[in-house]
């Protein structure tokens, strides 16, 4: 099998989507529907962050589409005054792929959860990421099933006591960032619902990226898994646990920045005290590295018990998107051969029956 260099021009994530000079506000993105998440749900904060962030893109509102699956977070599109589809469980990436392939003038966002994206829809997620369809996928991870009232999810910690696992869950959880990088996602980021600034920055970079962008958002479920991320929200505790990535900067953290990420073993990374290893050993973050192994090693610094959690943009590399390539094939075929229906129907071998 030969591979073909498509020679496509490099485009920004939003190239082709019409813009407007009209100033936009967050409230322009609020629909007339009453938001019906439980009081205190992390989804409110994320909705608010997205509505506040979108005006900065300057896109025509009618050219933005939110597609979701099933789950609490998947009600998201109803609350956005854009186009939207609340589809079926796990299938949003597939539906969004068909939309993105046929409509280069749309900015397509997928809203999904840990059950929707990683359990029932795991297959679509990894294939969308490997194809690199120009979609922005917001994965709300609350580590529980909320809509079905409290069963463990594929990101719940092993041993978790839930309604369906009274003796503790047996499953080993997914690390969504590791999974996405395993599928060679071209953009992977993570943020906390409560960190509006950090979340907005990851969203901004995701929007500018041309290709699939997976953004995992840690989100609190106050009813069935309350406080799941509290250790990341306590001011001092958070500093000891959260390793925030900034492209081009040494990866350091801690109350006084006393910890750093250093190389370890064969292509691995680990946390060390800077005072013991020296600042020169601390890895300078490069999200654009082609080899996903580095970003994968970063993702492995996150632990089930949240003793460490890496946030920010892990990987941001350029790769031809599936939808650009698919449209390019169609355009080239059109240019090479006129759409002559009569000639197609006739084919090569015909015969004619004449009247007697």
């Amino acid at each position, binding site marked *: 099998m030969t591979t073909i260099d498509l020679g496509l021009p490099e485009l920004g994530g939003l190239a082709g989507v019409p813009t407007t000079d009209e100033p936009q506000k967050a409230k322009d993105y609020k629909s007339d529907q009453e938001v019906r998440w439980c009081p205190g749900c992390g989804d409110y904060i994320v909705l608010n962050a997205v509505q506040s962030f979108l005006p900065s893109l300057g896109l025509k509102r009618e050219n933005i589409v939110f597609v979701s699956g099933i789950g609490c977070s998947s009600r998201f599109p109803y609350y956005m005054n854009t186009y939207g589809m609340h589809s079926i469980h796990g299938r949003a990436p597939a539906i969004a792929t068909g939309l993105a392939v046929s409509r280069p003038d749309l900015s397509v966002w997928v809203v999904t959860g840990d059950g929707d994206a990683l359990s029932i829809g795991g297959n679509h997620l990894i294939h969308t990421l490997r194809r690199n369809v120009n979609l922005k996928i917001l994965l709300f991870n609350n580590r529980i099933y909320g809509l079905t009232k409290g069963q463990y999810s594929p990101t719940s910690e092993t041993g978790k006591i839930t309604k369906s696992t009274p003796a503790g869950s047996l499953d080993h959880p997914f690390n969504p960032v590791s999974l996405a990088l395993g599928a060679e996602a071209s953009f992977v980021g993570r943020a906390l619902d409560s960190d509006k600034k950090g979340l907005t920055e990851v969203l901004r970079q995701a929007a500018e990226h041309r290709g699939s962008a997976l953004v995992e958002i840690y989100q609190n479920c106050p009813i069935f898994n309350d406080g799941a991320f509290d250790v990341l929200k306590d001011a001092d505790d958070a500093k000891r646990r959260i390793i925030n990535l900034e492209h081009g900067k040494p990866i350091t953290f801690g109350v006084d920045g006393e910890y750093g990420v250093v190389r370890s073993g064969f292509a691995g990374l680990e946390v060390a005290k800077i005072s013991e290893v020296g600042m020169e050993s601390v890895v300078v973050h490069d999200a654009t590295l082609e080899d996903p192994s580095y970003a994968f090693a970063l993702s492995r610094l996150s632990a089930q018990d949240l003793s460490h959690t890496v946030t920010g943009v892990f990987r941001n590399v350029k790769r031809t998107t599936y939808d650009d390539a698919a449209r390019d094939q169609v355009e080239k075929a059109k240019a090479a051969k006129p759409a002559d229906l009569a000639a197609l129907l006739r084919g090569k071998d015909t015969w004619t*029956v004449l009247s007697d």
Partner: protein
Amino acid sequence: MIRFAGDSGDGMQLTGDRFTSEAAAFGNDLATQPNFPAEIRAPQGTLPGVSSFQLHFADYDILTPGDRPDVLVAMNPAALKANIKDLPKGGILIVNTDEFNKRNLVKVGYATNPLEDDSLADFQVHEVAMATITIGALEETGLGKKDAERAKNMFALGLLSWMYHRPTEGTERFLREKFSKKPDIAEANVLAFRAGYYYGETTESFAVTYEVAPAKLNTGTYRQITGNTALAYGLVAAGQQSGLPIVLGTYPITPASDILHELSKHKNFGITTLQAEDEIAGIGAALGASYGGALGVTSTSGPGIALKSETIGLAVMTELPLLIIDVQRGGPSTGLPTKTEQSDLLQAMFGRNGESPVPIVSPRSPSDCFDAAMDAVRIALTYRTPVLLLSDGAIANGSEPWLIPDVDDLPDLSVEFATEPNATDGSGEFWPYVRDPETLARPWAIPGTPGLQHRIGGLEKADNTGNISYEPDNHDRMVRLRQAKVDGIEVPDAIVDDPTGDAKVLVVGWGSSYGPIGAAARRVRKLGLPVAHVHLRHLNPFPKNLGDVLSRYDKVIAPEMNLGQLALLLRAKYLVDVMSYTKVQGLPFKAEELQDVLADVIKGVGA
């Protein structure tokens, strides 16, 4: 009628295909029926590995690939054993003797060599050492023995071409094109083909040759076409006639994959083909494309429909156009992937949760797939609904002459997207579920249209506004509206074929049984037994006159390649005592057997 049978590696499908093209070029009417194993290469020389290709050509219009061949070409003992029961007494049997060695005979359970005992005494047997002669004919080409031996299928084709006075230029040209990158192989195949032709000409054993005159068909220009190709062309035409880009989201599955292969060649018509990660993603992408204003299509077979069911339900709820093609095969489960059946009717009709009505369209022959595809698209676009098109393996792989339509005569399928707010309360809003009073279709408002931003989804919609609603009366109303929309789809009246007008028995069929039923009806009429035949293109909704038609006859019989699925629907809807005749062997009905069935019924009511 000729049947080529051999090992699945022997090139029987190619041989049959070429003979078909020769017959078509000569102006014969024809119908073909390939029959091959699901395994790509089943163990050599065994019964499961037998591949055959039957071709019926004549100087009159033909409805079926034929029941029993006049000529059987058996390339090995397995092919003989699997097919000899279909050869009528006195039929011509051409045998490749080279494969009739002890090992091959034992493999298929022949205790003695049938060529040496009396078991074939009823037939005109012609023993030809095809491999030996082919190898001999190719000696001077310097080709290895193994490669030379592989050209024996072309030897068989040459021999048959001589017997039936087929033109040979087309096949020689075809071989040179097919092997254009390997000219030596091309020449070897041409040589083998000629060797077969000359063998017939010079061997005394073939005293009689056959000449079949061109058939009397309606005037016009014809080509040979298979059902899957005709279906793909129907989609290309529907794209052109609607002005919409087509997005095929699909996953390979037998016997539907050729639709993907064919459409992927026609990107110049604005067609995007997406081979998805699974059946669900295939239809998901198609629905996503439809949401964006393209014509979304997905193609599959029964097992794939099972997986797509939830998305079909979403399309019912979101009321978006979508075409779902089911090329039926033997079921349940993986069933008989390469064999035909029409047992997905009730799955198409009811195979979803909730009250989820979906229109069903079914082609009756290979060339009819073109019209059926365009009609299915018309319904999908006009009524904003998913439509199921039920083809089957016999139609998909079978071929027949097709009167090529004039492009100017094709129906206009253009649609209008919504561009303006439509709220009926004067609010100036856009309501996605306000219906057209005629069709009950909702507006198709695609993303990118200013001012019409709205949200749709799988949750129940409030009438008109489309907002989420759990209100009891609203749900009841919406369920009934969706049903009424499908019930109200305009379909042409059923046309009854009853030449004498005095039939008391009606035979009703759908799909690929059109050929055998039609042929059987002709046969019984020739015996002086009148019978009426109605063949249904639209299975949901049924034609409006169908109830009247059914009630006009003393007896209604429905032959089906399932256990009576159409009969069940007709009985339920029209309270008519429909008699069922069923067979599920993975093969089409034979006109002969249906003739007997119909004759018995007609005699029973006293013609």
